[in-house]
């Protein structure tokens, strides 16, 4: 058993940013464990540009954005291992990993969970019909095209207007496929407006809101789908069914934090974010186990993933320096106007950044953070969308440790 100060699980954007930041803060006895052959995570297959506008003030592709961090990891000589799968993290921070070289065990003072997320699949949204080939999640289609040089199909229907689905609509079109339409069950798009514009409108690909796939046809290969309009409760409206012949159905229906290890360690999860419950230090319900990036909450921009991971690294250092691993007891609760908040708890002793997502699109709204009738923070927004995360600064000096924080969007 080897002792490490910090074991970082996952070498994607969150893990890389956390490692570089920890190292610069003087915490050097660290190790990144990555399952794939290369560092970089999902960015390796995100070849479109638009990454890094906030951080580097230039528009990079995913692989370039990742490489900036990989270069830093190499320059600083930060230890990492690839083709290593972590099989268990215990509440006592014992990390077990396997590779072709065998089984490894580490005892860590802190564990940084940066495993990212997974895509929701056909099973997760229970689409009826047969089970032919040709039904892919958007990320799988993206890896086929951008990593393996395999074209998923020619006549394409896309279900879900998540950003990866929109990006794939453009990518498939440019490669000669015919993308017939994108269907979204919600009455508003779930991807960013700029992606609707440059991935759909530019190529005259129609987007139908409040529509879903109600049947899948075909035996060995997909032959077509039936699409119907839905009512406010997302129930298909009889009589609105339309048939679309296609050999490919791409699903872009949401992302869920990767929770296998978190569950194994016994972490408390949040049913709304689907990730771990954390305090303002990004510390989970388990002392010394931290989480950041898409494993904590699904982000819309990688730039924010990097920033979150760096904040987590800073918190880990502060915990090491003070030998105090916070015991957050002040609850942060949201009302029906907001889908979730991160963190979900705070010690009330540190300023922090609160991240949240509105439940519905809105204009000229204000987020209020209150303790009973006292407003401790507020921020105005000209426009809010469920597709865009909102962040605001919470000053610790205004927090009353006896009362919970209540958040509302009006």
């Amino acid at each position, binding site marked *: 058993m080897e002792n490490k100060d910090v074991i970082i699980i996952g070498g994607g954007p969150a893990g890389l940013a956390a490692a570089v930041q920890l190292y610069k803060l003087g915490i050097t006895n660290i190790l990144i464990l990555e399952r794939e052959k290369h560092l970089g995570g999902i960015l390796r297959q995100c*070849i479109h*540009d638009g990454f890094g506008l906030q951080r580097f003030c230039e528009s990079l*592709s995913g*692989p370039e954005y990742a*490489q900036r961090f990989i270069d830093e990891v190499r320059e600083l000589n930060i230890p990492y291992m690839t083709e290593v799968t972590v099989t268990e993290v215990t509440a006592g921070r014992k990390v077990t990993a396997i590779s072709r070289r065998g089984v490894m065990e580490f005892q860590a003072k802190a564990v940084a969970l940066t495993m990212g997320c997974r895509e929701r699949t056909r099973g997760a949204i229970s689409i009826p019909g047969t089970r032919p080939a040709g039904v892919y999640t958007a990320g799988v289609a993206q890896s086929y095209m*951008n*990593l393996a*040089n395999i074209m998923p199909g020619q006549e394409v229907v896309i279900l879900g207007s998540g950003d990866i689905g929109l990006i794939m609509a453009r990518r498939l079109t440019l490669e000669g496929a015919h993308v017939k339409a994108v269907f979204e069950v919600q009455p508003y798009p779930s991807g960013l407006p700029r992606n609707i514009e440059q991935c759909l409108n530019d190529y005259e690909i129609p987007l139908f809101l409040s529509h879903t796939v109600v049947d899948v046809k075909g035996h060995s290969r997909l032959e077509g789908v039936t699409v119907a309009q839905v009512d406010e409760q997302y129930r298909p409206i009889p009589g609105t069914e339309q048939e679309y012949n296609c050999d490919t159905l791409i699903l872009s229906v949401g992302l869920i934090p990767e929770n296998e290890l978190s569950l194994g360690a016994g972490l408390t999860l949040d049913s709304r974010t689907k990730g771990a419950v954390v305090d303002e230090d990004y510390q989970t319900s388990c002392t010394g186990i931290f989480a950041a990036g898409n494993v904590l909450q699904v982000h819309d921009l990688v730039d924010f993933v990097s920033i979150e991971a760096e904040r987590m690294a800073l918190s880990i250092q502060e915990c090491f320096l003070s030998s105090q691993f916070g015991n957050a007891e002040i609850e942060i609760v949201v009302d029906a106007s907001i889908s979730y908040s991160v963190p979900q708890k705070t010690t009330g002793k540190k300023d922090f950044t609160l991240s949240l997502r509105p439940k519905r699109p809105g204009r000229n709204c204000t987020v209020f953070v209150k303790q009973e009738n006292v407003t401790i923070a507020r921020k105005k927004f000209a426009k809010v969308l469920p597709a865009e995360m909102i962040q605001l600064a919470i000053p610790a000096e205004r927090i009353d440790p006896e009362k919970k924080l209540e958040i509302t969007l009006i």
Partner: protein
Amino acid sequence: MRREYTCIICPIGCDMTAEIEDNEMVSLVGNNCAKGRVYVQQELTNPIRTIATSVLVKGGELPLASVRLNKPVPKASLFKVMAEAKKVILLAPVRIGQVALQNVAGTGADLVVTKHVDAIH
């Protein structure tokens, strides 16, 4: 005539409303920065876009290297850019920043590699 635009320059994606007369922008509201105005002006005269794709790599640990245009090209030439990109075969190793194809389809823009691909050992 009033026309709605969504700015694609950055992830904020401002919703903008332009008043247009004889294909000239008379007024613009909704943009948070000066780039929005430039974008609408460009959309009126000659819409331009950058795209990313991949080119084949021979002898590499991966079959493809991702590439992108180093500057935007007229929207109308995007499929010509794709056709040219399909003909490119690079020899591994391939490095980020390497030019895969100069002056693609006469647009004046280059296709630049965005992923390191090492040679197979």
